[in-house]
């Protein structure tokens, strides 16, 4: 059971280049997420997806693009990388829970995280 994987694990690129970070999960989880981790900020949500072809912005979406054509994949693209996007990026997934909260529209299922991608933009 591979779980959730990210590639590449390390990436160095230059300002202005396009970079795509991959995320793949084998659990068929409905929800997938992208976070970035920076010192002093903890993890901040970039984008998330409730299902294939459904995506929405998080706290810090500027400069990023996502897509989700298949349930298991959720790539994150930096269209024109900037130095401020140097960070560690984590992908996560969770099931669409059935806790029955808020009329079944709200899930408190645990998010499971990938190992991360360390991106450096020079």
């Amino acid at each position, binding site marked *: 059971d591979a779980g959730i994987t990210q590639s590449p694990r390390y990436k160095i690129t230059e300002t202005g280049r396009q970079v795509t970070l991959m995320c793949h999960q084998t659990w068929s989880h409905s929800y997938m997420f992208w976070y970035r981790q920076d010192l002093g900020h903890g993890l901040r949500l970039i984008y*998330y997806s409730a299902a294939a072809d459904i995506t929405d912005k998080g706290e810090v979406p500027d400069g990023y693009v996502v897509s989700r054509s298949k349930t298991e994949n959720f790539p994150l693209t930096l269209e024109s990388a900037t130095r401020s996007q140097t960070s560690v990026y984590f992908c996560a997934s969770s099931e669409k829970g059935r806790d029955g909260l808020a009329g079944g529209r709200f899930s*408190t299922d*645990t998010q499971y995280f990938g190992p991360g991608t360390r991106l450096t933009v020079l």
Partner: protein
Amino acid sequence: AQSVAQPEDQVNVAEGNPLTVKCTYSVSGNPYLFWYVQYPNRGLQFLLKYITGDNLVKGSYGFEAEFNKSQTSFHLKKPSALVSDSALYFCASMEYGNKLVFGAGTILRVKS
């Protein structure tokens, strides 16, 4: 907007002693709170969560957390610390839409 605060950047404790990592929250409505741990060069690992019910939540690796509504706190605890518990700990609250809002993190150092 929801927020989570971890007031201590670092906590130092001797092996065998009890440990506490503090977390306070500010949410509208019912709080849904989580603790995660991150070891060096690894992703986050889920420890425990509070959704509803008992105020004392038991989780992985002997950790537990106490939910205190009057103090808006969700402190992580362990009765006897191990050197292997040394890591970065994150408290988080969940917003509508499964979105986690994280605190800044607390480094736990357990010395032998």
